[in-house]
């Protein structure tokens, strides 16, 4: 017993102070894309050709990158001879509206609040119980969803908790592209959640099918089966990206700024 106390003392207090303090991210972290189409030579499509998931589109004077499809692999960054694409350190990537995941050159990325409003906010703002369903994920998203339960992130302090049964849940958190073999189980789980219910799609797979988009074996994301209320992009998203999305939804994190606004 004494040993346990001694070890506890050694291990120290490990819960991060986010959102009150900015968290530390690794210098090589790849976050929100920054696009500068003014650098694009005429007719160049090097980035578009390099993208494994067709996340990029280039028109005459515009570049657009769909974070919902993006694997944040930076293959486009390496392919671009002009440095028109960069992945910034901005980890706040979650959005309520699918189209807002598309980053367009020449447009300012305005910080948009994620918080639920009205009755949903009143019901779920202080206590949000989520049932997690992996529907074909690779265990990357699953692992970094799970990690929010550790003492480092301590999701419970925001009133958010993963629960064992959909009957106990206010909504679903879905990972994976929704395989044909998981669609029925996912839909049944959704129907088992009492209304009103929300759905959170975590990761490129759950938003667009990710690397498996277009496969006969998958449906192409959570929205192909159920309505989605929050999209958290990444492959997998960093735990802080997921956390910021979740606590943003319940109004516990404000977005005063989103870095990576484009010129």
């Amino acid at each position, binding site marked *: 017993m004494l040993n346990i106390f001694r070890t506890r003392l050694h291990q120290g207090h490990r819960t991060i102070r986010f959102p009150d303090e900015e968290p530390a991210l690794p210098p090589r972290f790849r976050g929100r894309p920054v696009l500068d189409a003014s650098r694009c030579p005429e007719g160049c499509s090097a980035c578009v050709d390099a993208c494994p998931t067709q996340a990029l589109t280039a028109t005459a004077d515009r570049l657009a990158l769909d974070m919902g499809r993006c694997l944040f692999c930076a293959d486009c960054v390496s392919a671009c001879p002009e440095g028109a694409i960069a992945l910034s350190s901005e980890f706040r990537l979650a959005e309520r509206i699918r189209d807002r995941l598309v980053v367009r050159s020449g447009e300012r990325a305005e910080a948009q609040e994620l918080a639920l409003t009205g009755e949903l906010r009143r019901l779920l703002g202080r206590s949000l119980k989520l049932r997690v369903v992996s529907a074909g994920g690779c*265990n990357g998203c699953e692992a970094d969803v799970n990690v929010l339960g550790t003492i480092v992130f301590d999701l419970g302090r925001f009133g958010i908790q993963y629960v064992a049964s959909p009957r106990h849940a206010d909504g679903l958190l879905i990972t994976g592209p929704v395989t044909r073999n998981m669609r029925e189980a996912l839909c049944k789980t959704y129907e088992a959640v009492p209304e009103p219910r929300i759905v959170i799609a975590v990761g490129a797979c759950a938003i667009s099918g990710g690397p498996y988009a277009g496969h006969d074996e998958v449906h192409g994301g959570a929205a192909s089966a159920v309505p989605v209320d929050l999209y958290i992009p990444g492959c997998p998203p960093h735990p802080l990206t997921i956390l910021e999305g979740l606590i943003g939804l319940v109004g516990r994190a404000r977005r005063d700024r989103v870095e990576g606004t484009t010129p």
Partner: protein
Amino acid sequence: MTAIASIVPVPRAADVLAMPNGAARPLADVPCHEVAEFHRLVVGARSRGRRVSALFGYPGEPGGDRIAIGVVLAADDDGVVELARTELDTATFPSITAACPEVHLFERELAEQWGVVVQGHPWPKPVRFQPPRRGRPDVPPTIGVTEFYAIEGGEVHEVAVGPVHAGVIEPGHFRFQCYGETVLHLEISLGYQHRGVERALASGPDLRSIHYAETLAGDTTIGHATAYCQAVEALAHAQVPARGLALRAIALELERLANHVGDLGALSGDVGFLPTAAFCGRLRGDYLNLTAELCGSRFGRGMVRPGGTRFDVTPELTAEILGRLDRALRDTDEAARLLWGTASVQSRFEDVGRVTREVAEQLGVVGLVARASGLHRDIRTTHPAGYYRFAHLPVSMVSSGDVFARAFVRYLEIKRSVEFVRRELGLLPGGATSGPVPPLRPEHVSVSLVEGWRGEICHVAITGASGRFAAYKVVDPSFHNWMALAIALRGQQVSDFPLCNKSFNLSYCGHDL
């Protein structure tokens, strides 16, 4: 044939093609046998100290109907892999499983993927509930609809769990046949994560190939990406700079560290001992964050690329990683020692979920599960490729085959992996981290084995006349090990399932592909 030769059938040179791990040879050099001879070769493999790393179907000739079957035998004592193949005239194949149980799932896969009738298989059921790669079945498979093993009797009852589980884990279906609290049999039915990734890999290489490799099992990104790159580099005859090989090995050991530490914490949580569960939950992230220092991703996405690694380390980053690693090991060791020193934990770990050495050998179990049952199976030592040819690691073994053994092997490996990273990061070879990858040689086959944190990862790539893949086979260690979990549950309490399951911690997506 003499009497001695019939006891120990030594293959003639022409029976198999022997080659080192991570090499490629012309496909024509792989001996092609009659089905009966192929059958004898696989059945006799164990008596020659070989085990089956992969047995798989592939298109016999481009555009034709014939199905070929290839086998990869690992000769652990000789450090080579042996290849052989056969071509089927009819879509039938006599089952090898009764004589060689370790191929049971490979044969079921063969039947499901290629429509081959495996005659006499004792357990002919779907593996992933996927449609065959050729032709259309009369009735497409429906997930979870199959004939489950059932035990009848007045006091026997069935417990069915999944695919959606209580925890944050991947989907799978488990059926327990129980007598009171005692499990008589557990049947594991998977396929829910089947997303066509192996099929898609076979049409490469293309822009997505490396991303497929990185997500075959997302918690084994470095392991599978390294296996893929080794296979491609062998086919291309590419020379990977030593620094790139060293960084791959370091990243692979960091991946092992994160997962092993996380598993110790989860095992602790499953027996209700929360201190170590809490500490290791945090520490797992500390190791993942070291990988993120290397390449920006906690799971190693983007680190390993054909030709080498995409990222290098600076002296400052090396010092940073070494310092954090030392602190993490100190805390990990302290947290783990609580497990070994707490009687209530030990009484829950010991004698639970036992897999004997004999059963492990019969089932062809790999990785830490094999080592916890006293089997000397570790690709880093028996079939070293890449940097493991120059930097060695002792094999960590425990013989009791129970939950304790699987936990303690992890503990030993944590210490050894930290030593490895410390030493190799301090002695990194100079030069570039990546080199050019020439076009793949046509009509060649390469075999790539990597000791991922769960165990042996096997990738087999075959190129066609154009230099693109004609076939690509992935065997995740979980594919070998799921049946061992089912066997480990026999005679145990239903309530011990979470603990046993966690002690194996197998991959659903790596199995379902």
